[in-house]
């Protein structure tokens, strides 16, 4: 046996789990795709985000909170050992509103969720003037915001690089440029690649993002994931003008303003469109009018990895015990949980988190 775990997928999800297992002394081989693969790890918005998650499923809200709560420790450890710091900032984040009705309706939902979470859901509703004190560049059309104190953001590309370095430093093996064609389990798992490479391991984790849709059924998973396109913009580097992130805009550590994101059901098309860019620009300018003068440097389309209800899937295969499916939309937010908490679930220790609600059984046709 070459390894304890073979992980299919070398994005943030796969590498977070790999690094976490390596810190527990496991031997890990990661099988990763090529330079042009669909990679949410390269296209995401970089939020470590709690608010609005799990409005219908408090366990998901709690799981996001758990991860956000240990993110700083995770980032520091990984950063110190690799020298690549992910620039985590957890000073809270906004949900900006352009209408009083939507602001109040959202606040009511948050209040209900807060009760279900035993009061641990720290947020404030800010009117325009209160928000303006926090964010002097906010525009007159913004009526207010919800400031959630558990929210934050990171540089997701530096996280990806830190994980790529950290996994190798801890003795993990990463095979890049591979296309997995099949998995068999004669005696342990054998992952076969199109170039003839074979990887053997005791256990297998499928963390292949959208690739899970094709690979999952071979392992006995439903893996009902679909792509949803998000177009994203980034401006030239600017002096500090946004203090806290929101879903509309955030100022990244290098100075550019990242603006997001569309939600489009267009299959595997990761292109950008002028109407998409113009709509995002208009919204960002409504929130921060000074942005009208900012130069757009780049835009991109990235594909979210979504399940039918938007929640993660953590599932062990019944057909092939020892094979696990891990997929989620929020690979950045959940990176800390995947590195620090998921190994207990994979190893079935006493500290294993209860992830029952994230079983893909919830999608069973009844």
């Amino acid at each position, binding site marked *: 046996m070459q390894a304890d775990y073979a992980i299919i997928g070398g994005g943030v999800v796969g590498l977070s789990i790999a690094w976490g297992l390596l810190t527990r002394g496991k031997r890990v081989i990661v099988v990763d795709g090529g*330079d042009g693969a669909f990679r949410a790890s390269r296209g995401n918005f970089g939020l470590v985000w709690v608010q609005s998650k799990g409005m219908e499923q408090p366990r998901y809200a709690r799981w996001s909170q758990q991860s956000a709560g240990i993110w700083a420790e995770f980032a520091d450890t990984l950063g110190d050992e690799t020298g690549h710091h992910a620039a985590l900032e957890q000073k809270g984040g906004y949900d900006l509103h352009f209408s009083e009705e939507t602001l109040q309706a959202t606040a009511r939902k948050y209040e209900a969720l807060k009760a279900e979470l035993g009061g641990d859901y720290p947020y404030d509703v800010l009117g325009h003037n209160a928000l303006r004190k926090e964010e002097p560049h906010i525009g007159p059309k913004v009526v207010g915001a919800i400031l959630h104190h558990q929210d934050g953001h990171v540089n997701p590309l530096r996280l*990806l690089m830190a994980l790529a370095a950290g996994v*190798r430093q801890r003795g993990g093996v990463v095979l890049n440029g591979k296309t997995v064609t099949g998995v068999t389990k004669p005696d342990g798992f054998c992952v076969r690649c199109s170039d003839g490479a074979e990887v053997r391991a005791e256990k297998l984790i499928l963390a292949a993002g959208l690739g899970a849709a094709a690979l999952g059924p071979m392992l006995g998973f439903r893996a009902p994931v679909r792509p949803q396109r998000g177009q994203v913009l980034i401006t030239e580097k600017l002096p500090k003008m946004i203090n806290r992130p929101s879903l509309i805009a955030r100022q990244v550590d290098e100075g550019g303003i990242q603006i997001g994101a569309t939600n489009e059901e267009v299959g595997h098309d990761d292109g950008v*469109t002028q109407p998409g860019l*113009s709509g995002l*620009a208009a919204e960002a300018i409504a929130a921060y009018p000074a942005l009208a*003068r900012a130069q*757009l440097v780049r835009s991109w389309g990235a594909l979210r990895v979504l399940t039918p209800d938007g929640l993660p899937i953590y599932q062990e295969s019944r057909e092939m015990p020892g094979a696990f499916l891990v997929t989620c939309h929020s690979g950045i937010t959940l990176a800390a949980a995947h590195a620090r908490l998921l190994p207990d679930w994979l190893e079935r220790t006493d500290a294993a988190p209860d992830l029952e609600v994230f079983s893909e059984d919830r999608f069973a046709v009844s």
Partner: protein
Amino acid sequence: MQRSDVVVIGAGPAGMAAAATAAGHGASVTVLDEQSRPGGQIYRDVDRAGPARAAILGRDYLHGARLSGELRAAGITHIDGAEVWAIEGQGRVSYTRRGCAAQIEAGRLILATGALERPMPVPGWTLPGVMTAGAGQILLKQSGVLARRAVLVGCGPLLYLVAAQMVRAGTPPVALIETQTRHDLTGAARHMGGALRGWRHLAKGLRLLAEIRRAGVPRYTGARGIEIEGTDRAQAVICQSGGKTHRIACDTVLLHHGVVPNTQAARSIGVRHRWDAAQHCFAPVLDTWGGAEGAEALIAGDGAGIGGAVVAELSGRIAALRAVEQLGRITEGERDRLAAPLLRARGRERAVRPFLDAAYPPFAEALAPADSTIICRCEEVTAGDIRGYARLGCLGPNQAKAFGRPGMGPCQGRYCGLSVTGLLAQANGQTPDETGYMRVRPPLKPVTLGALAQMDGTGDGAR
């Protein structure tokens, strides 16, 4: 939205010729060009050059004046100062002019975006006072300004041309440091058969060299170990030549080791590109007419592969014939009849290329720079950084970008793209084709969010 039968991007020789030919067959044509005057780089500002400057720049330059005159023909709308930042679908082109965004829908799209100078990363190349030879020439063409105490470094016909133009203007360069070796030239001799057919080019090159020699400009050939010295600006060029180390004091360094196709627009619409080993660059995969593989567009001029101004002009006319045939304005038979002499002439002109490509290969040290040399100027990423990303599993430039930002700055990889691919290919033991190229995304040129937002709700796509 505006609409034109044919939209041409670029008003260099290929773009001007394509526009004139298409309009000559009754098509409505719009030419979008970044410059304020037609001509492209080679015929920059040609319609405005006075007789004195024309004498310095030479006869070929004036050929451009005739071409730019054709742009004034009926049926052609020439939009100058237009920065194209997105091309979508079957030919919807978004551009900005004087801060305002606009769109035009093309029946047929012809990309004539020309060439870029190959980046020449040598130690010190990012110091103030260092620029490309082409940039030095632009100053001369546009403003009549000449670099004083300049050293020209590199290889290729443009290097001699700029040197000769400086001699004619009464400010000869301090020295010419040439990177090509005698071996390059003898190796190129096997292509002389083709080159003899293109004898005009060679005779021209020899005339330029004679001019440079008469002016007493020192030449250092087969130069190696090139470094630009200086603390806050360029002060000297160091090189080894003829078994000795030379230090040539100067104020300006003009670097040049060839030109490469500007493929940004073509890549942004998904045109397939292939590595051209002879020209050491990527070029789009095209049919005879310039029809691109992977997207609905025709590509003409140096953007289709380096061929020079005459080939560019011919390719522009050939692509335009294909476009008007596709628009139903001429039959395939008429197209073929009209194209036949153009194709023959293009074949003759292209014959000299293998000789030129072999005689003036890119400078090897700039293709494999030392670890400390900066590759991406916008984000200050060094060659050593990029080799480090390869060790972390980056097989191609897109993951490398994510790791260290090369190509993420304002130029979006226009100037470092080939260097990054080259370094990763060397480090991973792969070919440039296997390594691939940075994914090119809008905006092709920076655009303000305000200009983008002005268009909100006017487009016909879904958000």
